[in-house]
Structure formats: structure tokens, C-alpha cells
């Protein structure tokens, strides 16, 4: 978490300097994805009154869409609705700021009622060699702990909450357990956290109905370059050394190795 704070600070600084968020293609636009996390309910999604997602099924992820910054009104209806006049969820207003990246999630609240949340995705630059893991609790379930391997990495995550951490790129064995326990209610499942990618894992469904599941979203292009290429150790190839005797010593050492090898060869020949 400390690493993330540092990365966030650095990105904030860059933002202040340039007035642009690095990963955003267009400073006037926001990126929006939509995840359907309400089980057993195929829906239509209306944006500002216009049908935008037709027959959107549970576990589907739409987007990303590049949208001009502004406030969008989203209504979710049954899939056979004629229009958005009788939404099953919403209408809700989504204020989208330029340069930001969002995911709107239709999901169950802790008590199992449909609700919607707008999450802001962390698209700040990741350190070379690292990826970002975001975990979001959008399931009808009490507070949970997120386990990587066997140990909790995020504790006490409540419905609607998220946890974010940067970690070395690789595969994480992720599981979700009730807070304070280590007995998984979801997983364990291998999740790839790729370098320079924000891998967002959603826990969704209902504990009571036994349909908890994971959904995965990725946002790439957050990488940064290594800070250098340290590709020499001895100074033998130096054009001009600041300490010439070192080169002499290194050459002598190398010559000594060569001499030893030659002697060995000679010795073999003598046998």
C-alpha cells in the first residue's frame, strides 16, 4: 500500500505539472466501462434516455467507452422494456470528469437489493516490473477479507468498497473469505496481475443464493520504463578510466585467468 501511495503522489505531481492524466488519450474525455453484477437478470441499459446496451447479461462487461466529460443519466430496465420509463434500477446520474477512468457496476447491496456504484479506476503509472490489483466487493455478502496465497492482503472490505495495491507482476492465488476468516467463499483462483496493468477483480452475486463469482476487468498501458540499464561491472571496456590502475588490475586478473587456463592446457598436453 505504501508503494501505491508513492506512485499516486508522483502521478498527482505530474498531473499538476502538465494538466493531463498520463494514460488518458484525450483530455476532454472520460473512459467508462459498465459491469453487470446482478444475478439472474438480463437488462437493457439506457444512457440519457437512449438504449445503449441491449440484452446485457449478468457477468458481462461493456466498454471502455470514450465519452465527453459531463453528467450522464443511466437507467437500467428489464430486457423486454419498451423504454426507460420503468427502470428496475435508477435513473442515476454519473458525473464523469475528463481524463478519468470509471466503471459503473450494477450489483447487489449487502442485503441483496439491486444497486449501482460508480468506481473510479486508478490509472496512475505503475513502477517498472509491477502491476496493480484492485479488488471490489459488489456482492450480497458481509465484510470480507481478500487473500493472496493464504494470507489476507485486504481486510474488512465491505459491500461497495474497494482495495488497491501495487505488487510485482505475476500470478496471484486470490480468494475471498468472510472477514476474520481464511475459509474461502470464492476461490482460490489464479489471477494474473500483468506488468503495467490494473487488474480489477469484482466479487459479485449472493452468498445466500450460492452464486458468488468473480469478474475481471483490466486496464493496460500504465507501465513505466526501467530506471536504467546497468550493463557493465568491471571497467575492462572503458575508453578512459578515472582510475587507470583499476583497469590494469582488472586486466591482470583477466590475464591471470587466461594464464591459468593456458597452463592447464599445457599440463594436459604434457601428460
Amino acid at each position, binding site marked *: 500500500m505504501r508503494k501505491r501511495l508513492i506512485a499516486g503522489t508522483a502521478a498527482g505531481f505530474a498531473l499538476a505539472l502538465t494538466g493531463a492524466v498520463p494514460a488518458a488519450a*484525450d483530455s*476532454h474525455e472520460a473512459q467508462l466501462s459498465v459491469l453487470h453484477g446482478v444475478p439472474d437478470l438480463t437488462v437493457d441499459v439506457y*444512457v440519457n*434516455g*437512449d*438504449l*445503449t*446496451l*441491449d440484452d446485457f447479461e449478468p*457477468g*458481462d*462487461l*461493456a*466498454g471502455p*467507452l*470514450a*465519452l*465527453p*466529460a*459531463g*453528467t*450522464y443519466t443511466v437507467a437500467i430496465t428489464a430486457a423486454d422494456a*419498451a*423504454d*426507460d420509463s420503468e427502470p428496475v434500477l435508477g435513473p442515476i446520474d454519473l458525473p464523469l470528469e475528463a481524463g478519468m477512468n470509471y466503471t459503473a457496476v450494477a450489483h447487489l447491496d449487502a442485503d441483496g437489493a439491486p444497486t449501482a456504484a460508480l468506481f473510479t479506476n486508478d490509472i496512475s503509472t505503475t*513502477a*517498472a*516490473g509491477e502491476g496493480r490489483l484492485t479488488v471490489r466487493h459488489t456482492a450480497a455478502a458481509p465484510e470480507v477479507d481478500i487473500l493472496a496465497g493464504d494470507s489476507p492482503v485486504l481486510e474488512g472490505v465491505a459491500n461497495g468498497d474497494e482495495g488497491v495495491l501495487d505488487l510485482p*507482476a505475476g500470478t496471484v492465488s486470490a480468494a475471498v473469505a468472510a472477514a476474520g476468516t481464511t475459509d474461502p467463499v470464492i476461490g482460490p*483462483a489464479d*489471477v*494474473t496481475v*500483468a506488468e*503495467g496493468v490494473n487488474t480489477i477483480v*469484482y466479487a459479485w452475486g449472493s452468498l445466500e443464493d450460492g452464486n458468488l463469482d*468473480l469478474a*475481471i476487468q483490466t486496464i493496460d498501458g500504465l*507501465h*513505466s*520504463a*526501467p*530506471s*536504467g*540499464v*546497468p*550493463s*557493465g*561491472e*568491471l*571497467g*575492462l*571496456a*572503458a*575508453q578512459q*578510466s*578515472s582510475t587507470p590502475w583499476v*583497469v590494469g588490475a582488472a586486466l591482470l*586478473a*583477466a590475464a591471470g*585467468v587466461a594464464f591459468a587456463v593456458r597452463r592447464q592446457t599445457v599440463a594436459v598436453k604434457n601428460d
Partner: protein
Amino acid sequence: MSTPRPRRTPHRALRTAAATALGALVLAGCADGSADEPAGAAPPEVVATAEPTGEPAAEPTPARPAVEVPVRRADLSSFEVESVVQPVGVAVPSIDVAIPVEPVGVQDDGQMEIPPLAEVGGWYRYGASPAQESGTSVIAAHVDSIATGGTGPFARLRDVAVGDPVEVTLEDGTTQTFSVVEVRRVPKPTVEWEDVFVRQGGKRLVLITCGGTFDRGAQSYSDNVIVTAEPRV
């Protein structure tokens, strides 16, 4: 309630476009006099019959912009990680260099990891592969190393000439051939690594080692030798 709108054919790939929504949004903004919405990025094609409520007239609406919202399953089994064909060797015949290559990452200090032996190149596995059609592949090797006890083949990298061929062998047995377009020696503090480790853009190969003077206190050379090559045509 207005007239029920005609249903679109049920189709998993969404036919409705964000562009349509945006078009309607801009219209709505105009209609109610609101000036909140920036219109600059909205697609030009707007459904002229759309009303501020978003309910079009009963007749089939005019053709909508053909922008589809991408939708995919988000479950773990649908989540595929791309695998790339990796390079396993690099050769620069003009300077008698032919070394094996292995994938490397990043050291704890944030610098690129370099194989200990100077006779082995490290391919930056988070960047592009020479097998791919875009992006910069980076292969670096020690100019000299403790493990080797002397200099390695990349000590001759500074002698390469523009136009010299560079051959990269891939793990599938195929070869990618490049031509050197630039050879430069750059003081380490001034290297713009973000311009070297580029993951998008044109296909390039960059070979890197060390050069210049050696600072024994810092155990470091002063410069990097950076050779850029582009696909041979």
C-alpha cells in the same frame, strides 16, 4: 407514454452505439438550453428525430452510427492472458556477435535486470517481442562482468555500423531480421528511457550495453551504448 419503440433484433453484440447516445445527449442539451455538455467530441451523425426524452418516433429510426460498444464475458475463464513468442538469440554478424537471449525483468532498484554472464543477452519481457508487429524490443548484455571474468561480445557493439543486419531467433525457430539505423553512446543520467522502452508504435529492436569511462566507486560505466534497428526491408 410515447409509442413503444421498435425493438432491435436481439443481438449480443450491441448495436446501439455510444455515439448514438452522445448524439442524443448533445441534442438534448441544445433542446433544453443547457450548456453543460461539451459537444466537441460528439460524432457528427445525429438522429435528427430523437427527442430530448430519448424516445424516437415510432417509425424505424434513420441509420445509426456504426459504433458498437464492445462487450465481453468478465468471468475468470474468459480472461485470457496473451502469450508472446519470445526471442532466444541475437546475432550481429558484422561484429561477430551471436549470443543466446533469455527473458529478464526489473531489479529491486528499478533498473533493467541483466544476465550475469556477458555472453548472454537479456530480453525485457514486459516490453514488445521481436515476434510482434509493433513496439520496441529491448535486448541488453553486459559489456563485461564478474561472472564472465572479462568482456563479452557486446563490447563490440559500439563498432557496429548503420545498415548492418541484426538477426533475432525466436523460440518458434523463425528469424526476424533488422537493420541498424542508429548507434549512439549516451551519458547514463541523460538517457530518456521512456523513449527507449516503447511498447506501442513502430516495430524496433534496441540493443544496449555499457560504455564510456568506468567509475570504480559507483561500479558503473558513465554511458550506455544504444543501437537501434528497424525491420529490414
